[in-house]
């Protein structure tokens, strides 16, 4: 896509240069040299070249700017397109974690792989195969390995979500060869890598006769629901988030020892979809927790501070540190999130730095809810 087209599609030409976006941007808060307003203005100027500005890689995609912009300039979309242009022009990227996530996504995009990705699945999870509905697991099994140094088990959350569906009597199949949804490749401007994953997912779902997907991962949800229809040929699947399944809200949890939980909204489920209540209802009614809102919550929630596995640096750490400070200030027993990546990033932040927030326990919402239900049954 050329600059003219990017400007048109993202409504950048409506920009009045007011600077609201920069005022609310969490990256700008810790790195005053980064300004969404200036990047939009640079894109609009006749000089061109916004795509080779190194600062386009600092945006964490939190969508705070777009929510604030009176003219609805789609900043995250603009950044994504600028990144695509930048890559086409040969920009070398700095991946975090030695680029392991990118390599895994690229290898998953190969047509002939046969993954062995369900070793973590407990025997009690009931899978209905064949069926026309699939639970889309996401990359939690890979994250468990990649981030094992952080001592996080992301599949606990996935298992929790599947247990809730089982208990609510909602049948689902699992895909042996599900590919990563490709969210992070797309956000990093890697459209070829993204399309390779999408094409394989279309094939896998088609071969299994799947017409509907349920997922608990906010980024899978966004990608499958918003990006697949516009970028992946042959996509014709209904996508719902687990908090859109009414039956799970009829489940009754045990009266657990009352816990106090600070809820961290993911940017995708929150600002992108404005889904703030389903997760909170699960937390209070199912997991029986007392909800503690952090200083920034719901639409003003602070991002977990990291973009698609690249350029993680001191600014990202400062955003994360601030989020942990906010959780700590509530005096809650747990910081609860519904996104595996938020869990990874915030756990990492808690372990690094001066260890000030190492004591904050960060847990997955679905894991907590399923545990509460299991206690009632057991």
């Amino acid at each position, binding site marked *: 896509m050329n600059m003219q087209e990017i400007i048109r599609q993202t409504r950048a030409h409506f920009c009045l240069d007011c600077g609201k976006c920069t005022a609310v941007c969490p990256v700008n808060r810790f790195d005053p040299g980064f300004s969404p307003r200036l990047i939009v203005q640079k894109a609009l100027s006749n000089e061109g070249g916004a795509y080779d500005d190194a600062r386009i890689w600092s945006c964490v995609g939190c969508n705070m700017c777009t929510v604030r912009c009176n003219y609805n300039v789609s900043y995250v979309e603009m950044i994504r397109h600028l990144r695509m242009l930048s890559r086409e022009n040969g920009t070398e990227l700095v*991946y975090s*974690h*030695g*680029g*392991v*996530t*990118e*390599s*895994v996504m*690229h*290898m*998953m995009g190969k047509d002939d*792989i*046969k*993954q*062995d*990705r369900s070793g973590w699945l407990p025997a009690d999870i009931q899978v209905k195969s064949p069926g026309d509905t699939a639970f889309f697991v996401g990359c939690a*099994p*890979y994250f468990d*390995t*990649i981030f*094992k*140094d952080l001592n996080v088990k992301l599949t606990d959350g996935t298992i929790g979500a599947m247990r809730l569906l089982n208990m609510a009597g909602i049948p689902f199949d699992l895909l042996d060869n599900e590919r990563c949804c490709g969210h992070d490749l797309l956000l990093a401007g890697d459209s070829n890598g993204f399309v390779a994953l999408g094409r394989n997912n279309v094939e896998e779902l088609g071969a299994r006769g799947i017409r509907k997907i349920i997922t608990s991962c906010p980024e899978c949800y966004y990608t499958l629901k918003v990006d697949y229809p516009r970028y992946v040929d042959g996509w014709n699947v209904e996508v719902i988030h687990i908090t859109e399944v009414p039956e799970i809200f009829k489940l009754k949890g045990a009266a657990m020892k009352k816990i106090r939980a600070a809820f961290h909204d993911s940017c995708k489920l929150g600002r992108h979809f404005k889904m703030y209540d389903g997760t909170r209802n699960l937390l209070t009614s199912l997991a029986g927790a007392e909800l503690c809102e952090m200083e920034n919550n719901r639409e003003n929630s602070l991002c977990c501070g990291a973009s698609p596995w690249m350029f993680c640096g001191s600014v990202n750490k400062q955003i994360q540190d601030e989020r942990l400070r906010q959780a700590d200030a509530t005096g809650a027993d747990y910081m609860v999130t519904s996104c595996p990546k938020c869990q990874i990033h915030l756990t990492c932040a808690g372990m690094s730095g001066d260890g000030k927030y190492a004591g904050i326990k960060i847990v997955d919402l679905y894991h907590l809810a399923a545990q509460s239900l299991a206690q009632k049954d057991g």
Partner: protein
Amino acid sequence: MSNKIVVFSCSWDGWSCIDAAANAGMPYPASVTVIKLPCLSGIDAGLILRALEYGADGVLLLGCQPHECRHGRYGKNIEIEFDKARQLLSLLGESSDRVRLARLDAFDGGGFIETVKSFSAALEDKARVTASTGNKS
């Protein structure tokens, strides 16, 4: 022997073995690419997978015996990352044996040639089995 093997070698005992093999005129196939690093502790699963993603059939990590590490960092880090890479390959349905960790004593040129040959033979066997059964792991 046409397997593409990338060798990440530390610049101490690992490299001394490759050097010794070269000085003694012991040949190794042109399909073996050696990349020299200060220490294997700088390797992570990402680098290993990147080599495979870019087309290597196998990755050999060649370093000193743990107690010989000049940087005092050998043992743990590389083992963690080696295990991670193997587990990720298994998840991907690839053979985890596409990555091998070898520790040799200094100047063991014959040991290096032996290691590369046996690794290549194992990769070739695996490729044959995969071709006939379609099962990679």
